[in-house]
């Protein structure tokens, strides 16, 4: 018999006798499944959050803020500057008007659904071009607000996470009241956590005079970004920084996603050590209950390497089953779970859903296989080095 068929025969022997060791095999599987569930679900939080942030941007939109500002909150642009910015080359135009929306960004206190503690909900004052600039915007309930009134529309994510934002309700904030007349969605981006109103009305309510904070411009093509930016930064009349929207949001999400990912990997690593020991124990049991068979095989002339490979394969098989179970459970339990958290850079809430992607599931499975490999190594070596005479004598 050549090496491959030897290995195959011994491996099949191992795998076929797993049902005899169901108890301890089950423990190893559950242990590994547990680790994979924790890893995948924690990472899915980070994945959902950064997906919501990245989804928000578009390559052919540019965000103009005051130079030196690190987020929309800290930027300020006066009306004369806005007029100049709207004349920049590279801006998409519809007729005479540039497709750009000058916007104001404030935060209002609304309690989260579930807890009663107030959360920072972003309120964005926009210009009529806002829905044209953001092509993914669409009203799903009610209607768009009328500019010049205190009507607002609320994003889908905000309605789901904060109290009292359904269509027809009234929002009281300080001395201002706002009427909710519609709900919008923007393809899952963080704009869905915002409340939109007329920037002119917002300016009055918050006594901002004629100032805005940012300008979101739709470029006529993604390549005109450089022309647009260079004209604006070289212009002595304005003092701005221009960034692609995608780049801005990617940077914003970095801090929180890194933290969550570190926590996820850390916990999974520690748990993994425990699960590996569980797997080692299971495999040692597997080897010792069959030491007579293994010794017989070796006495018959089977290659020691085939014995090692067979034990490793059994360990990997158990780990693979555990990893698959863990991944499926994590997907079923957590994929699409809606929640919201605070984006540290803008101090405002971001609504997002947990996302269990194929990449995460693969990561979980790979980690499970790694644990199975480490767990099976020492037992496999022990099986290979069993002294044949004493093993044959064992019960």
């Amino acid at each position, binding site marked *: 018999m050549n090496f491959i068929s030897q290995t195959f025969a011994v491996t099949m022997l191992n795998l076929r006798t797993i049902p005899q060791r169901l108890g301890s095999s089950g423990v190893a599987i559950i242990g590994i499944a*547990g*680790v994979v569930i*924790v890893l995948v679900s924690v990472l899915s939080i980070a994945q959902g959050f950064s997906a919501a942030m990245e989804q928000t941007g578009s390559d052919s939109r540019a965000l103009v803020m005051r130079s030196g500002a690190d987020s929309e909150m800290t930027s300020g642009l006066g009306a004369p500057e806005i007029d100049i910015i709207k004349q920049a080359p590279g801006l998409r135009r519809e007729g005479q008007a540039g497709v750009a929306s000058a916007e104001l960004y404030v935060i209002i206190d609304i309690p*989260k659904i579930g807890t009663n*503690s107030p959360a920072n909900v972003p309120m964005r004052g926009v210009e009529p071009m806002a829905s044209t600039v953001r092509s993914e915007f669409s009203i799903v309930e009610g209607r768009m607000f009328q500019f010049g009134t205190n009507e607002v529309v609320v994003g889908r994510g905000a309605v789901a996470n904060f109290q009292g934002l359904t269509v027809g309700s009234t929002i009281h904030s300080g001395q201002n009241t706002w009427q909710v007349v519609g709900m919008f969605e923007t393809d899952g981006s963080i704009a869905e956590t915002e409340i939109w109103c007329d920037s002119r009305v917002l300016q009055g309510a918050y006594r901002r005079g004629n100032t805005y904070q940012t300008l979101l411009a739709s470029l006529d093509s993604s390549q005109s970004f450089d022309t647009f930016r260079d004209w604006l930064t070289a212009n002595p009349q304005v003092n701005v920084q221009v960034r692609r929207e995608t780049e801005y949001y990617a940077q914003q999400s970095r801090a*929180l996603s890194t933290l969550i990912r570190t926590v996820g990997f850390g*916990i999974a690593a*520690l748990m993994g050590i425990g699960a590996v020991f569980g797997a080692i124990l299971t495999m040692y049991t597997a080897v010792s209950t069959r030491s007579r068979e293994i010794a017989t095989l070796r006495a018959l002339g089977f290659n020691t390497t085939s014995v090692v490979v067979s034990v490793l394969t059994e360990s990997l098989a158990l780990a693979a089953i555990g990893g698959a179970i863990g991944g499926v459970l994590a997907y079923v339990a957590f994929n699409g779970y809606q929640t919201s958290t605070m984006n540290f850079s803008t101090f405002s809430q971001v609504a997002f859903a947990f996302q269990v992607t194929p990449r995460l599931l693969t990561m979980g499975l790979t980690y499970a296989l790694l644990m199975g490999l480490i767990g099976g190594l020492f037992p496999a070596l022990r099986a290979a080095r069993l002294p044949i005479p004493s093993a044959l004598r064992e019960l």
Partner: protein
Amino acid sequence: AQQMGAKFDSMFANSSAETKTTTEKGFVEGFAKQVGDIGSIMIAILVAVLFTMLLVAANTMAQSVRERTSEMGVLKTLGFSSGSILALVLGESVLIAVIGGSLGLGLAWLIVQNGDPTNGMLPIFILPARDVVIGAVMIVVLGLIAGALPAFNAMNLKITDALRRS
């Protein structure tokens, strides 16, 4: 502080600069709650971790008892009562849990001594005595639960069965 806060707010109510006063503690708590139900997320994750580890520990204890069945049989023949066998197994389980758990608690304490590892994101890391006590209690409980089934089996072992297995 609450009363002063309410007084300030009523002073400025309906003016051009309304205020909302909370205690510093309330403000920070509100912030923490905004990041998401951190408490329940942490607890959910930790329950999953504990459950998995409990399973591994129970398996280990069961294996160790299985290996020493004949010794248990000899002990019983010598006159050790079933209750003392139970205590023996449980005691071993709790001892292992205490060694491992104390190592873990000690490491956690060391890490917290170093202050904040998240670079300012979550600035406060402390391990109050209360939590150390909770940890110690959990260690003992974990040891007891992990060893319960094997200890029970060992206690009820018939001497003839035990000796036959050698």
